[in-house]
């Protein structure tokens, strides 16, 4: 068959066809070369004199000018990120005769360490011809004075005044503000991808973390440029015209820096985070994660040694625990589960169970322990929230089943990004059958569901998710996107940022919200409540929920008290609460790692924050008045 087909082919005709086509292609090549040549003729002969004049007169270079970066204020107008005058040393490589000798002399004069010296050499190597390049940033006054006196020895080098970012509150606000640092290779690529290469032509720093990173586009501004005349060696002679850059937007945050500093003062020596919000619209008033670090180090260019120290620190200061810490939510989610139980009619406000101190499934020997060994006796849902009875919620979770819990808790934002204005945020995990199958290739067991009832097992959440879920409870199911940014300043007036919310969680009985909130109120207000001790004699009404997340599994027959547990396996102390009860002005989330019980360790901290915010306001406002920039109305 194949042979016959071969035999039928008319090779002569095919050869001719190919030759014809090749000839046409050659003609096409000739025509296009003709077009190219015609264009060359046009450029090099017809317009020759024009271009020659332009080339001769092409002593004009366009030099980009970086815009000034926008400033950042707190909600009361206190400056949080500023641009300070600074001096840098710049040079033009072509104007220096013996570079190595000059650099050696320079390092002797200005006392430069080896690491900096290497950086200087690198920047000289990468310098573009005839373009000034910065070789040393942030000269101190002594260095500027010394260099100016010896200027004649260093022709081709000059000191230039510029602006450097400075964060006056240093480590108190690091995880919120983040920082800017020198643009690196990766940044250049993403700038190119966004079509912003021209806009960053003169910019040397870019937001790397926090607000500085999230709002990079708004803080950066637009590049300007000047036309300068240069001589035949490329040296600038005079400036012909200037198109001024447009500075970046000045941003105003919801953060209250006084509150932030107070939180820092009570978090010393503790590992964890505190987040404070205005529950009505989810604005973030304070967010502090401890331990922290000084962002100014990164602006100046952190030394390898200092950076390694930060990276290797086992307490992980670089982590923003408020949005990146993923913890078992523990008993904090009992109110949410109670609401779900009431909604689905699995329990009623009056139905009671008996708690002998453990929960057991029929015909299964395994016992799920209550935190109280002797049990809480006969309990209803409200009382179970107040004393944080585990057995009640084991049974509730069993009755609801994982599918219902997963669907409903997702509506509260668990397992999802809150979409707070920080790129660093992580999403935690709201487990489901599908998730477990994909992650572990295992089916979902009933035992998994029972742990979920007390916020343990595969469930993890970030503090910001938990605070947001509390605010959702307070707002009858309306979930806002928590926002750090309040707005921007335009000619002294504050332009407020819009607030976005998700469609509300639907409930059949609005009364259930109230019932759950009453339980949280009485967790704080009644003597049997787990937060009663922390809030004794408070001068305002408050509600909340304690949580103690176990990181260590106790064996079936072991006694918890008798086991010595390593530090990093000690319980996490959790608390969230709000005040005043009727119209909440503030909600607080405290998560302390390996600190022990939530009622005794986390709740007192929340109380201190509320006391400060609600009671010490007059003395606070006085300090603020001295510092702030007034916004016009």
């Amino acid at each position, binding site marked *: 068959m194949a042979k016959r087909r071969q035999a*039928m*082919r*008319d*090779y002569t005709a*095919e050869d001719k*066809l*190919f*030759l014809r*086509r*090749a000839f046409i*292609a*050659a003609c096409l*090549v*000739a025509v*296009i*070369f003709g*077009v*190219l*040549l015609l*264009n*060359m*003729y046009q*450029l*090099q*002969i017809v*317009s*020759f004199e*024009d*271009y*020659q004049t*332009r*080339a*001769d007169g*092409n002593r004009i*270079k*366009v030099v*980009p000018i970086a815009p000034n970066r926008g400033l950042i204020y707190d909600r009361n107008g206190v400056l949080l990120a500023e641009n300070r005058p600074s001096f840098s040393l710049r040079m033009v490589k072509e104007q220096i005769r013996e570079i190595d000798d000059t650099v050696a002399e320079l390092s002797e004069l200005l006392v430069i360490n080896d690491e900096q010296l290497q950086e200087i050499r690198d920047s000289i190597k990468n310098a*573009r*011809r*005839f*373009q000034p390049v910065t070789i040393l940033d942030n000269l101190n006054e002594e260095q500027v004075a010394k260099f100016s006196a010896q200027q004649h020895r260093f022709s081709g080098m000059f000191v230039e005044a510029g602006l450097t970012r400075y964060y006056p509150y240093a480590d108190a606000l690091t995880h919120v503000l983040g920082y800017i640092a020198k643009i690196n290779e990766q940044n250049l*690529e*993403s700038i*190119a*991808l*966004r*079509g912003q*290469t*021209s806009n960053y*032509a003169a910019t040397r720093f870019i937001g790397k973390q926090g607000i500085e990173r999230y709002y990079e586009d708004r803080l950066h501004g637009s*590049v300007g*440029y000047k036309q300068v005349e*240069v001589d*035949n060696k*490329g040296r600038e002679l005079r400036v012909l015209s200037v198109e001024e850059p447009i500075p970046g937007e000045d941003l105003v945050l919801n953060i209250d820096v006084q509150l932030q500093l107070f939180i820092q003062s009570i978090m010393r020596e503790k590992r964890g985070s505190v987040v404070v919000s205005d529950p009505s619209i989810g604005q973030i008033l304070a967010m502090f994660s401890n331990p922290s670090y000084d962002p100014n180090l990164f602006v100046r260019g952190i030394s390898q040694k200092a950076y390694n120290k930060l990276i290797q620190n086992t307490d992980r200061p670089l982590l923003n625990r408020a949005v990146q810490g993923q913890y078992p939510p523990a008993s904090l989610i009992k109110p949410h589960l109670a609401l779900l139980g009431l909604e689905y009619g699995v329990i009623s406000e009056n139905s009671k169970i008996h708690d002998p101190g453990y929960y057991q499934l029929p015909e299964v020997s395994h016992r799920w322990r209550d935190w109280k060994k002797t049990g809480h006796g006969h309990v209803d849902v409200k009382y179970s929230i107040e004393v944080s009875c585990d057995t009640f919620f084991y049974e509730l979770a069993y009755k609801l089943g994982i599918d219902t819990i997963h669907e409903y808790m997702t509506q509260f934002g668990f397992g999802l990004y809150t979409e707070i204005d920080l790129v660093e945020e992580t999403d935690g995990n709201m487990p489901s059958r599908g998730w477990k199958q994909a992650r572990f290739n295992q089916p979902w067991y009933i035992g998994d569901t029972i742990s979920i009832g007390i916020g343990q097992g595969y469930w993890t959440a970030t503090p910001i998710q938990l605070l947001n879920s509390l605010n959702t409870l307070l707002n009858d199911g309306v979930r806002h996107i928590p926002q750090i940014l309040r707005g921007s300043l335009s000619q002294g007036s504050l332009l407020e940022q819009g607030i976005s919310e998700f469609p509300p969680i639907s409930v059949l009985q609005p009364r259930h919200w109230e019932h759950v909130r009453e339980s949280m109120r009485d967790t704080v207000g009644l003597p049997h409540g787990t937060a009663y001790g922390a809030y004794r004699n408070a001068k305002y009404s408050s509600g909340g929920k304690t949580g103690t997340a176990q990181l260590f599994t106790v064996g079936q027959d072991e006694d918890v008290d008798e086991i010595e547990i390593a530090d990093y396996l000690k319980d996490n102390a959790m608390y969230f609460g709000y005040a005043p009860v009727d119209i909440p002005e503030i909600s607080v989330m405290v998560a302390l790692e390996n600190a022990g019980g939530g009622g005794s360790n986390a709740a007192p901290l929340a109380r201190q924050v509320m006391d400060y915010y609600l009671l010490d306001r007059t003395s606070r406002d006085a300090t603020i008045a001295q510092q702030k920039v007034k916004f016009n109305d």
Partner: protein
Amino acid sequence: MTNTASSFLSSLLQRLHIDAWLMVGLIVLMGTGLVTIYSAGGEDIGLIHKQVTRLGIGLAVMFFCAQIPIHFYRSIAPIFYLVGVFLLVAVLFIGVEGKGAQRWLDLGFMRFQPSEILKLFVPMTIAWYLSQEPLPPKLKHVLIGFLLVLIPALFIARQPDLGTALLIASSGLFALFLAGLSWRIITVSTVLAISFIPVMWFFLMKAYQKQRVITFLNPESDPLGAGYHIIQSKIAIGSGGISGKGWLKGSQSQLEFLPERHTDFIFSVFSEEFGLIGVLLLLALYGFIIVRGLIIAGRSQFIFCKLLAGSITLTFFVYVFVNIGMVSGLLPVVGVPLPLVSYGGTSMVTLLAGFGIVMAVATQKKVVSR
């Protein structure tokens, strides 16, 4: 005496699978490149060393490719094509990003760009496919041929790497054209391609690519970016005049008004310093290489060889056209180097490998009977 010497030489070259005319053309071209790079790179001898090393590697690869018998290429073409497409998919998922595009696979010891091998295996596969049936190809074969070209080209355009996608698409399309694609299909598909432009603009092109087109249409809109570059490039070319400003004496190049002087914009440096006369000679040199390639294709016995050598040669022409068109303001800025003259680029090795294949076609043993 001279007669024996020359016949000895030609039989030696035949045995080494080297086509003398093509070789001379390529060597002169590379020399021109080195001379221009020296001027464009600010008389940096280090650049020359690196480029010579690269050329050496490229020539070794060319020599190697020229030794491989043609029937072997023919038998491996479809397999390598499939492997190449598979690697492109791999790049999409596990590729390494660089310069804003995802083009590379990280092999641990080196980075590898799968689109490069497809520059050779797309035309080879089309040639293999079309040579199985009598020419001109039937509609069904044309459609499958189009598909074989489009699949890799679209993957590469997505990376995004429009320059390479363009080169690969044209290599395949040239093979189809040379095989006798009917004029009706050519007309219809041209119309289709033009109507596809809006789709590309709205769904496929990235912000920076659109920016390039906008800049091309209105260079003044981006005085710090590509628009400025094109204006400066035209000034460089135009001010070269008939005879040029002389080697190392182009003010546009030496004062750094020109961007990417030793890579994509090297033609501007060349025209500024050597003028229209230089340009004429350079284009003549390119024309010579292209015509020689087509002659080799035409003289070959087998349809597969004809199509392969022809499309490799014509793709080489596309490089020249796109690059010169771009720097002289006739085409938008697409990152395509001036072949064998621009500094660096993985593409140089691929280009020389292609010429190795052309030489393998040129020097294969004739079969007396079919």
